[in-house]
């Protein structure tokens, strides 16, 4: 498996697209900047929803309003992140694909997306349970603290990809 990934990386790094990204000096910094701007959108939206779940913000307005207002932005930002992330991976495949921190980051993204999608679905099916205060406060708190912790770890992983050794 590792061998196949390594061969794929070497093939990808030698494709014309990858070589263009590698040789034009402004592409990687600009794509990384767009990537970070999309991260700011996720952070703002996650913070707004999780702080509402914890009862810190949005007094007098239901949780279901906060999820309708903010969660769609997370999905739009994730599409931008996937796109820009793919460009960065195409430029330096081994730096990402043969890197344990990158793999942890991807696994955590899958987990948090699943949890967020399930939460969004649960709220849309039963908005009454997600009013100004949640019907199940402990569930809401666990969800808020859990997703915040995962997103913070994802951001830390994102920065650490650049510092750990890769294949």
């Amino acid at each position, binding site marked *: 498996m590792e061998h196949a990934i390594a061969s794929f990386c070497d093939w990808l790094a030698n494709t014309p697209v990858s070589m263009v990204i590698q040789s034009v000096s402004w592409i*990687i*910094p*600009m794509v*990384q*900047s767009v990537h*970070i*701007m999309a*991260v*700011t*959108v*996720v*952070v*703002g*939206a996650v*913070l*707004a929803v999780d*702080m509402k779940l914890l009862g810190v*913000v*949005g007094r007098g*307005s239901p949780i279901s*309003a906060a999820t309708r*207002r903010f969660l769609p932005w997370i999905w739009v930002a994730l599409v931008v992140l996937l796109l820009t992330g793919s460009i960065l991976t195409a430029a330096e495949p081994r730096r990402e694909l043969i890197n344990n921190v990158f793999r942890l980051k991807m696994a955590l993204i899958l987990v948090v997306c699943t949890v967020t999608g399930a939460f969004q679905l649960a709220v849309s099916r039963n908005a009454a349970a997600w009013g100004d205060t949640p019907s199940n406060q402990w569930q809401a708190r666990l969800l808020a603290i859990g997703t915040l912790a995962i997103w*913070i770890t994802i*951001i*830390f992983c*994102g*920065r*650490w990809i*650049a*510092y750990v050794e890769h294949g």
Partner: protein
Amino acid sequence: MLLTIAQWLQDTAFGQWVSTSSVAFPWIESCHVLCMTTVVGTITIVDLRLLNLTSRQRTVAQVSNDMLPFTWGAFALAALTGGMLFMSKATEYVVDLPFQLKMLTMALAGINMVIFHFMVFKRVAEWDGKADTPRAAKIAAGLSLLFWATVIVCGRWIGFTVR
């Protein structure tokens, strides 16, 4: 003068530690990214409300009261961690063009915020809750988004000029 201060900061035990330790810089930088994205993310929410594009079911005062404490808390920590990173190679950062542009753009964002606060936001009760936000508020919000996007580009650019 500036270079003398930079040299002194860089020569402190702390500056030396950030620059020579293999883990100090990445950990502090990760915290800086987390705080910076919180600053820009929460400001974006307020700016989009000022542009009258989103959160219209809540007033501008409600949205900014909810978000700005996070903005200020995160900004303080971003400035602190940024200062720590600066100390690692202060003499190189002060003469670095992207770093200088980043500081300049943050100053512009600050001036924009002060002008907005005293000219428009002070009278928020008069216009909040109306169908549209004042033109001056929209201009301030648009400039704010532009400045903070530039800060991000400059910040990332620094990583390619100072190594």
